[in-house]
């Protein structure tokens, strides 16, 4: 493939290349970083409107110990770009990209928190996933994961503006209020500090990280397949999708593909998971708005889907079903029948919810015009998924960069134009119906055959052969003890998670364990816009907006 970078930009780079997956990768000096990023954003040949992620990687043996990797994308053409910049340990400072994309806000804070890379010109350079009083940067290779850090009540995060406000004479006029972290309406441990003027929010800041459990650090000490049970705990409402996304990324690095049957099963169960995820999101959102009944109507099919997942994988919530190269087992004999029954049973429940709320004026009044996001703003904040589509941008990874054969299925991307809470509800409702369409087609076309690759460097040989043949036993033994050897290099794999683009940036040093895994959780980018989204709204609107964004602390905090 031709290098699509304009020559003006190329002259600023140290090097650039097109990776096998079509992503354009470039290396740049720190002094040219902002110029290159700006060029990538503004040059019509690239027009990267999405800053998907910023990831720090630590290479203690290199002269420039740290590397920051910027993941950029053009939502119209689907083209992806990666910008790498090396940094010396004693001078790990980068210019902030916040002025180019507000999405850099939390991504840069995360790189600071986890890797200790400073960003000059960032408006709020604080830790984000760990506590403010935390010592060290956990994703550095020399950070010992077993050490403990004790935090006390006094270290509670209070934003500067809130402190000043409480001290000033205007305190009478305004009031500082804490929403969360443990509040039933936050549906997860999320804390939002707001300043109220009357009942109107005029400033807000979020604190997250309560559910941080070092997923990325743990991945570095586990085999490639052993990471999959950990991915289940990212977005736990649709755990199947996470495991599949990770497996696909590793498969990409290995240059293999799962067999067609495995792909079809992955598609079916991923779409069912998406449906459940939307059902939980909308069900909970509606409960918060006082429409409890819908919760039951949504949870009934969800219960059945959990049963289906359990009959395939052996677990309901944390399925651990995907493996690098395929799936752990074939589906049970009654799989197709169960799926078809679900395809018949689910639509009436969706219709019921539709009848109860879609045209209901109380619901419309509560949600229309609430938490409005324009298309440009949403992209600038790094939004993807149903929330972005509700603002009118038809970006869906399943269409833009099809994987697992999504290009063979006929489905539409639901969009709405108003970008408010109501639009997000409508988009999710329609997406559930589209998911059912995909499942139906996948069932019709489901091929026979193996469910995991036959490459014994990657997949365990069938048990019967392990018991009886020496050779298979040796393969089995080698794979269990040494793990999969993924070629040296890095890759960014992205799939359409229930909340949007779920990306894994994976670095391998050729060993049996990942060198670095960076997740791009879709709701991380979405939630960083939340304080801005709620400004000017009332407290009950905050609840409505938060519910419609579907913030899942498991993937937000990792």
């Amino acid at each position, binding site marked *: 493939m031709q290098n699509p970078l304009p020559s003006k930009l190329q002259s600023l780079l140290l090097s650039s290349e097109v990776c096998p997956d079509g992503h354009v990768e470039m290396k740049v000096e720190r002094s040219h970083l902002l110029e290159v990023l700006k060029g990538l954003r503004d040059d019509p040949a690239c027009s990267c409107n999405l800053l998907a992620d910023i990831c720090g990687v630590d290479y203690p043996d290199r002269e420039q110990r740290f590397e920051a990797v910027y993941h950029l994308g053009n*939502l*119209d*053409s*689907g083209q992806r770009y990666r910008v790498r910049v090396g940094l010396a340990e004693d001078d790990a400072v980068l210019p902030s990209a916040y002025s180019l994309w507000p999405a850099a806000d939390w991504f840069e804070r995360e790189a600071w928190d986890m890797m200790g890379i400073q960003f000059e010109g960032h408006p709020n350079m604080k830790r984000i996933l760990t506590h403010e009083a935390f010592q060290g940067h956990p994703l550095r290779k020399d950070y010992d994961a077993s050490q403990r850090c004790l935090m006390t009540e006094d270290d509670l995060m209070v934003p500067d503006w809130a402190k000043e406000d409480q001290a000033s004479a205007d305190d009478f006029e305004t009031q500082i209020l804490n929403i969360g972290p443990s509040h039933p309406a936050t549906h997860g441990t999320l804390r939002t500090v707001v300043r109220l003027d009357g009942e109107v929010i005029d400033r807000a800041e979020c604190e997250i990280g309560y559910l941080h459990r070092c997923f990325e650090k743990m991945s570095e000490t*586990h*085999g490639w*397949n*052993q*990471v999959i*049970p950990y991915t289940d705990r990212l977005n736990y409402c649709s755990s199947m999708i996470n495991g599949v996304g990770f497996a696909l990324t590793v498969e990409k690095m290995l240059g293999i593909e799962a067999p067609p049957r495995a792909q079809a099963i992955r598609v079916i169960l991923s779409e069912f998971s998406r449906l459940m995820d939307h059902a939980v999101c909308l069900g909970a959102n509606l409960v918060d708005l006082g429409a409890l009944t819908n919760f039951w109507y949504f*949870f*009934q099919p969800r*219960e*059945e889907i959990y*049963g289906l997942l*359990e*009959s*395939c994988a*052996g*677990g309901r919530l*944390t399925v*651990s079903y995907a493996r690098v190269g395929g799936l*752990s*087992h074939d589906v*049970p004999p009654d799989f197709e029948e169960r799926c078809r029954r679900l395809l018949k049973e689910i639509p009436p429940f969706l219709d*019921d919810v539709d*009848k*109860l*709320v*879609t*045209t*209901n*004026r*109380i619901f*419309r009044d509560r949600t229309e015009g609430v938490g409005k996001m324009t298309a440009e703003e949403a992209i600038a904040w790094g939004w993807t998924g149903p929330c972005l589509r509700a603002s009118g*941008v*038809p*970006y869906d990874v399943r*269409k*833009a960069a099809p994987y697992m054969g999504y290009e063979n299925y006929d*489905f*539409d*991307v*639901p*969009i*709405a*134009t*108003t970008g408010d809470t*109501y*639009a997000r509800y*409508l*988009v999710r409702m*329609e997406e559930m119906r589209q998911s059912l369409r995909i499942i139906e087609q996948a069932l019709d076309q489901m091929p026979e055959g193996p469910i995991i690759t036959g490459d014994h460097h990657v997949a*365990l040989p069938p*048990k019967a052969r392990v*018991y009886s043949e020496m050779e298979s*036993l040796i393969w*089995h*033994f080698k794979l*269990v003890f040494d793990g999969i050897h993924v070629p040296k290099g890095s890759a960014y794999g992205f799939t359409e998670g229930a909340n949007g683009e779920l990306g894994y940036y994976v670095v391998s040093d050729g060993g049996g364990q990942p060198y670095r895994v960076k997740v791009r959780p879709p709701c991380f980018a979405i939630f960083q816009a939340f304080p801005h989204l709620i400004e000017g709204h009332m407290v009950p609107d905050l609840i409505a907006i938060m519910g419609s964004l579907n913030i899942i602390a498991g993937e937000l905090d990792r």
Partner: protein
Amino acid sequence: MMKDVPTVNVDRPPSSLLERIYLGPIFSGLGVTLRHFLRNLFGKKDIATIEYPEVKRQYSERLRGRHILTTRDNGKLRCVACYMCETACPAHCIHIVAEENPGEEVAHEKVPRIYEIDLLRCVYCGYCVDACPEEAIIMSRTHEMAFSDRDEAVIGIEELRQKGPIEEADIGYRPYF
């Protein structure tokens, strides 16, 4: 590219008069709930809620519950203390100490002297079952476990050992279905 994506616009027109005066949607909504109510009262019940613990959910035969260490016909553990399950376990919750087989069987030189699983650390992923080359560890469908302290959750060979014929055990996740 994005322009070619088939889309469906889900925007809705402003509320009609009937919708604005609340009544239409309210009555149709009442119709929905009334239909569910009547059907659940007189007809075919479609209630997903079960009256746990009196009624228990029927799980599939793949459910990943508490482990079982299977035994041979002579009642000895099948396990040959090869450490594969311990290595494959992502939660590092299996602890094995091997010893020479004290019996006369020479076919299996090693046996576990200690085989412990910390059930509170275990994530019930089934990787140990996949890793075992001897079918020595499988999972049962036992998933209701309560402990009064953490030490109690670390169980050893005696608790894990298969009790009675395997057909009578409530077996779950295992190599074949």
